[in-house]
C-alpha cells in the first residue's frame, strides 16, 4: 500500500476564491430596475380616427406642463407640491359639487356597489418640457391615485393596498380606477431627427 498522501495544501484556495469574487464584483451590476410603470394607449386605427370618445367636460382635469416647466392644473397655475391634493380632491369630489366629476354606482364582483368616480386626468406636455419635470408630475399623479387606493383599502379592509391579497387588490383597482390619459401629441408628422 502506498504511503498515505499528506494534507493537500489548501492555503491558496482562499486566493483563488478571492480572485473569482473580485472578478464578479467588477463585471456584474446589482442595481434593481425601478421606475414608474405605465401602459401606453394602443394606436388608434386610421379608419376609425373620427370617433373619439366623448368625455363629459366636468370629468376631465387637464394637467399641462409648458416648455418652461410651468405647471397648470385644472385651469390654474400651481406649484407641484399642491398638485397631488388638487388631483385627489378632484377625483373624490367630497362635496359632490356639480363642476367636479360625477360618480356612478358600480357593482363590483365580490364586493358590492361602490360609487366610482368617473374622473379622468389628462396629462399634456410640450416638446420643450424637460423630462425631469414630466417625471415629477407623473410621480405626483400616480401618488394621488395610490393614496386614494390606500385610503379605500384602509377603510374597507383595514390594510394598505400593497398588503391585500390579489382578489382584494382587484376590487380596489376597480373602485379607484387609474384614469390617467396622455393626450395625443399634436404634431406627430413633424418629427425632429
Amino acid at each position, binding site marked *: 500500500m502506498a504511503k498515505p498522501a499528506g494534507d493537500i495544501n*489548501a*492555503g491558496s*484556495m*482562499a486566493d*483563488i*476564491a*478571492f480572485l*473569482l*469574487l473580485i472578478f*464578479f*464584483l467588477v*463585471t*456584474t*451590476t*446589482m442595481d*434593481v*430596475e*425601478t*421606475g*414608474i*410603470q*405605465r*401602459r*401606453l*394607449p*394602443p*394606436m388608434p386605427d386610421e379608419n376609425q380616427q373620427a370617433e373619439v370618445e366623448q368625455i363629459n367636460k366636468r370629468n376631465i382635469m387637464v394637467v399641462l406642463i409648458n416648455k418652461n*416647466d410651468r405647471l397648470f392644473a385644472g385651469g390654474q397655475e400651481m*406649484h*407641484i*407640491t399642491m398638485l397631488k391634493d388638487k388631483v385627489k380632491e378632484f377625483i373624490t369630489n367630497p362635496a359632490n359639487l356639480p363642476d367636479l366629476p360625477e360618480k356612478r354606482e358600480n357593482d363590483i364582483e365580490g364586493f358590492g356597489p361602490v360609487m366610482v368616480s368617473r374622473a379622468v386626468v389628462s396629462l399634456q*406636455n*410640450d*416638446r*420643450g*418640457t*424637460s*423630462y*425631469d*419635470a*414630466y*417625471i*415629477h408630475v*407623473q*410621480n405626483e399623479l*400616480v*401618488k394621488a391615485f*395610490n393614496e386614494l387606493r390606500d385610503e379605500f383599502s384602509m377603510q374597507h379592509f383595514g390594510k394598505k393596498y400593497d398588503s391585500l391579497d390579489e382578489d382584494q387588490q382587484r376590487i380596489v383597482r376597480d373602485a379607484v380606477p387609474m384614469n390617467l390619459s*396622455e393626450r395625443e*401629441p399634436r404634431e*406627430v408628422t413633424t*418629427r*425632429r*431627427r
Partner: protein
Amino acid sequence: MATFKSKTDKGLKPLNTASLPDIVFMLLFFFMISTSFRQTERVVSVKLPEATEIAKLDRKDLASYINIGTPIPAYQGQFGTDARIQLNDTFSTIDDIRDFIAASRESMSEADRPFMTVALKVDETVRMGIVTDVKQELRRCSALRIMYSTRRQAENNSF
C-alpha cells in the same frame, strides 16, 4: 527578504485559515446569484430622474432598454451634444426602434411576449419632444408596456 519573526517562542499556534476559503466562496456565491452581468456599454450619459412612486421590474429578462441622453464625451465630436437614442450598443434613430422591438420580441418565448416591457432610461435634462417621438413609435409597434426608469428619491425635494 523580510520575514516576520515571532517574538513568542512559547509555541503560539498559527491562525487556522482553513475556513477562509469557505467564507470567501460564500461571498462569491452571494454575488454570483444577486448580480447580473453588464449587458451593454453606454454610449449616452444618463442621469435618471428621481421619483417616489416606483415599482420594481420583476422580470428583468423581459425588459428591453432604450437609453436617451447626450453622447458621452468620447463621441461628442462625432455626434454632437444633442440628445440621442441608444439601442443596444449604438446610436440609433426613431426608425430603428421598430427593428429593435421586433428583435427583442423574437428573442423571447411565445408565452412571454405579451409581458415585454420597454424600460425608458432617459436623462433628466432631455426635452420631452424626443421622448414623445419614441413613445409614439412604441405605440405603433404595439409595445405598450413601458417603464420610465427612475431612481428612488432620497429626500423630498421638488423641481
